[in-house]
């Protein structure tokens, strides 16, 4: 067994890994104070392993970020006997559950690093990371994320979900269209907390990623996906089903922007040779539906979104002057003065805004974190327009609108290149 990562893994965890030996399947479970849900999630994972991989050697690796509610003990304490009656097939091999504390505070980068190191040491063929917050996780999710790797030789499997048309708006309005336009691959959920990967790609990422660059806690899932695209690994998508609604607060928007948009913007500079050479985009191989949209009515305070946009544009004028071109800022100021009925933040202006933010981020015209924070009010304005445009839209209409935005991102890509070169 190779002990290349022994420097940051604890002796106790190394002993646990040695006891496990080599495995075929590794399930990574990053946690932090998830005692309420973790029991049922581990049961579901065990059930998924018994049903999908009864003959394979498997292990559940819990990377805990300093839980104080006994989460690690719950992970290791869940007995597989509780699962067996529900699932007819029996595992022919021992199913191990091991746990380690990678830090005293949670950081998705630290958790993934631990899981990747464990996968490398155990020579796992196929691995999957499951989110401890997925309340509606199904045993089939494991097979859906692992089979393409184990059977078909893919290196990364990202999920697709059934979502409400107004859920995941940061993904549909920025992350997906921009990633697709720049990297040329249509991956819906590039920063999902659930994904499958091959041991080969995991080891490669573990060795190449800069883990001590001070950003290891944010957006590692997106960095993982971008690394797979950059390295030309085989990537596919797998439809999992409905994504549960995670209750979020207004304050969650800025952390979400940091985690995703900040990560994407910071990747653009080193990846310039990759994305500057890409034109158009290709669909990623997908098992099951590419997407599914739920349409039931959802009450949203649109007025507040527009007000926060208008206030942001007025109050942050001095900040936007450093980031945006005069014409884009003037246009934003014009629409900020419009009433609720006339208000419209067109796709082209939104794309220009995002590209100018990306170029300013690269140039660090002001603190990079401030640039990301300044995007929040503008994103609210774009969300308002998206809500208005899709108020009564069918699933097909919503998809057409998202596709239109994606094409706009692709069409205006030369503008980003021009900004990039002019700011050399």
């Amino acid at each position, binding site marked *: 067994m190779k002990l290349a990562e022994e420097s940051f893994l604890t002796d106790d965890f190394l002993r646990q890994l040695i006891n496990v030996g080599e495995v075929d399947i590794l399930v990574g479970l990053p946690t932090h104070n998830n005692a309420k849900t973790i029991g049922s999630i581990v049961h579901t994972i065990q059930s998924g392993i018994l049903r999908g991989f009864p003959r394979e050697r498997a292990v559940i690796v819990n990377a805990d970020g300093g839980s104080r509610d006994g989460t690690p003990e719950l992970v290791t304490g869940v007995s597989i006997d509780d699962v067996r009656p529900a699932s007819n097939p029996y595992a022919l091999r021992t199913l191990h559950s091991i746990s380690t504390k990678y830090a005293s505070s949670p950081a998705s980068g630290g958790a993934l690093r631990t899981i990747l190191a464990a996968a490398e040491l155990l020579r796992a063929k196929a691995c999957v990371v499951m989110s401890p917050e997925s309340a509606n996780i199904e045993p089939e999710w494991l097979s859906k994320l692992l089979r393409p790797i184990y059977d078909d030789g893919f290196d990364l499997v990202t999920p697709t979900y059934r979502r409400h048309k107004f859920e995941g708006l940061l993904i549909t309005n920025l992350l997906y269209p921009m990633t697709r336009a720049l990297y040329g691959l249509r991956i819906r959920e590039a920063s999902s907390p659930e994904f499958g990967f091959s041991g080969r790609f995991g080891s490669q990422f573990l060795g190449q990623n800069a883990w001590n660059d001070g950003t290891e806690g944010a957006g590692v899932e997106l960095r993982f996906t971008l690394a797979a695209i950059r390295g030309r690994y085989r990537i596919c998508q797998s439809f999992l089903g409905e994504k549960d609604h995670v209750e979020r607060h207004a304050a969650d928007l800025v952390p*979400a922007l940091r985690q995703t948009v900040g990560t994407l913007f910071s990747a653009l500079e080193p990846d310039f040779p990759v994305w500057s050479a890409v034109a158009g985009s290709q669909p990623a191989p997908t098992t099951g539906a590419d997407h599914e949209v739920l349409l039931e009515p*959802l009450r*949203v305070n649109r007025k*507040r979104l527009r007000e926060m946009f208008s*206030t942001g544009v007025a109050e942050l004028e001095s*900040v936007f002057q450093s980031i945006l071109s005069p014409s884009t800022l003037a246009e934003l100021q014009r629409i900020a003065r419009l009433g609720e009925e006339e208000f419209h933040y067109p796709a082209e202006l939104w794309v220009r805004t995002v590209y100018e933010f990306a170029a300013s981020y690269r140039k660090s015209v002001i603190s990079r974190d401030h640039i990301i924070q300044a995007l929040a009010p503008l994103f609210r304005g774009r969300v308002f327009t998206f809500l208005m445009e899709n108020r009564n839209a069918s699933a097909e209409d919503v998809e057409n609108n998202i596709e239109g935005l994606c094409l706009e991102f692709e069409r205006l890509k030369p503008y980003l290149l021009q900004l990039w070169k002019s700011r050399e």
Partner: protein
Amino acid sequence: MREMIISELSQALHEIARGFAHFLPRLIVIVILAFVGWVIAYVVKALLRSILRLIKFDKLSENAGASQLLTEAALPSATEMLSRFVFWVTWLGVILLGVRALGILGLQDQIARFFLFLPRLFVALLILFFGLLAASFFSRAALLAAVNANVPSPRVLSLALRTLIIVFVLSIVFEELGLAEQTMLVAFGIAFGALMLGLAIAFGMGGRDLARRFLEKRFARGKKEENEDELSPL
């Protein structure tokens, strides 16, 4: 009598001539020193200007908000200002060193004090620059946080923070320079106290409704306000 007058006059003229003969070489030396000092100062200025342009000092100054202050005061850019400052300090320094070497009485102490003051002036300028940088950074951070949290009057909050930091920095700068220490201390105390009192009164008077709404929302089991919280960005 006539001879005496002529003798005194010739003696006076002789002394003036001797004084002039004594002074002329020193004057020539001072002029040469001034010229050499000017050349040295000019070279230092040109070098410093190139270095500052290389490290994009103007951008740093812009981030610090110092450029804005300079523009408003119709002064040249930060790079130009610093270069000129160093030019004058160098030139003056070389001249004073020369004058000191010439042994002109009365100037020795003043020159010594000038050179003792220079490091303090430099430190004070550094404090001022980084203070302005900190004021700009934190006021912008406060502005962004307030806008994203939908706090009323975010610009006022940001400006108050900026003012507070600048006042604090200025008090340190004056203390470093040793200028009106007591006055500055008292002025800072009064300004800080007045600002805090003003904020407390403003909070008390203007924030009553806000505080009531906050407490109601926090503790009352009322109808959940529909808002964007229901939309998950990811």
